[in-house]
């Protein structure tokens, strides 16, 4: 699916739950859950757990904030996993974390910067994009109704 597609038609498929062990990276761990389950594309349905420290980014210059633990509790995550035509898989995760005082921070989790502390639970729902012919048919239907 070209990344410049504005509307992508599809269906939800399987649902997976994974427990990721300590000292694994959060973003890479979620990508590997997809590899383990054979999901090319997925949405995060639920996630909670703890990190040693959290590394978050939220500015166009790529600057990061380090939230010191341990442990930093992950309070919520929204995100998706996409696999491109080269079979490169990439998770993009955005969320809210709380430090050891409960103070909250938010941003995009930096790949390689968020080591799991005790455990991380994630629920992923597989996203099955329609094939290109069906995408084109759905797009033309939308134009007809406008």
């Amino acid at each position, binding site marked *: 699916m070209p990344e410049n597609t504005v509307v992508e038609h599809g269906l*939800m498929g*399987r*649902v*997976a*739950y*994974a*427990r*990721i*062990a*300590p*000292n*694994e*990276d959060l973003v890479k*761990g979620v990508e*590997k*859950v997809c590899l*383990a*389950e054979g999901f090319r594309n997925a949405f995060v*349905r*639920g*996630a*909670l*757990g*703890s990190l*040693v*420290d959290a*590394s978050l980014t939220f500015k166009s210059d790529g600057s990061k904030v380090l939230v010191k*633990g*341990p*442990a930093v*509790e*992950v*309070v*919520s*995550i929204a995100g998706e996993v996409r696999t491109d035509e080269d079979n490169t898989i990439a998770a993009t995760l955005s969320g*809210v*974390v*709380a*430090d*050891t*005082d*409960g*103070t*909250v921070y938010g941003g995009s989790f930096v790949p*390689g*910067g*968020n*080591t799991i*502390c*005790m*455990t991380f*639970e994630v*629920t992923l*729902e597989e996203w099955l994009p329609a094939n290109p012919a069906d995408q084109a048919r759905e797009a033309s239907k939308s134009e007809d109704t406008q």
Partner: protein
Amino acid sequence: MVAGNFHSVERARTMIHPGRFHPVRIQSEHSDIARHFRIVLQPGKSLYDAIVQPLIQVGVTSASTTILGGLFASLEYCVAPPDPRNEAVIRYSAPIVAGESYLIFGNATLGRSSSDKPMVHCHAAVRREDGVVRGGHIIPGKTIVGDDPISVLVTSFDDFDLRQIYDPETNTPLFQPVASL
């Protein structure tokens, strides 16, 4: 510059747990179809009862849920600082009483405890009675739904179970997915 300092800046910190490193780093299970439910947390019930009771009625024992936000008459939570006894790398703190609180957004997982009872593991961001916004591990039995019902989206796991199983590496019982019998 000392090499150790360089690495401490550039590399994400790791931790040494009390137990032996387990070679399996990802435990995952899947269901072919995701079933969804919308449940409504009932006023006056604990968060635990308000999630567990309606799901038992529809036969759901393992699920991931999203709490869509709402007011709780009382709420308790804890945070996870380093374990003073060094039995694990962290331990939950004593409960923090937040009073009447608005739960902004949260996720809760339903599974079975080590003693084979329903167990709810919930993390959320909350606005406490004193106006401060905090996040952490919500204590479901001590958190009481306020006067208005609160919507929850449930994704049930039909082909596997979540069980709280002792994890030797972290020296802590943790939710793990296991294939249904």
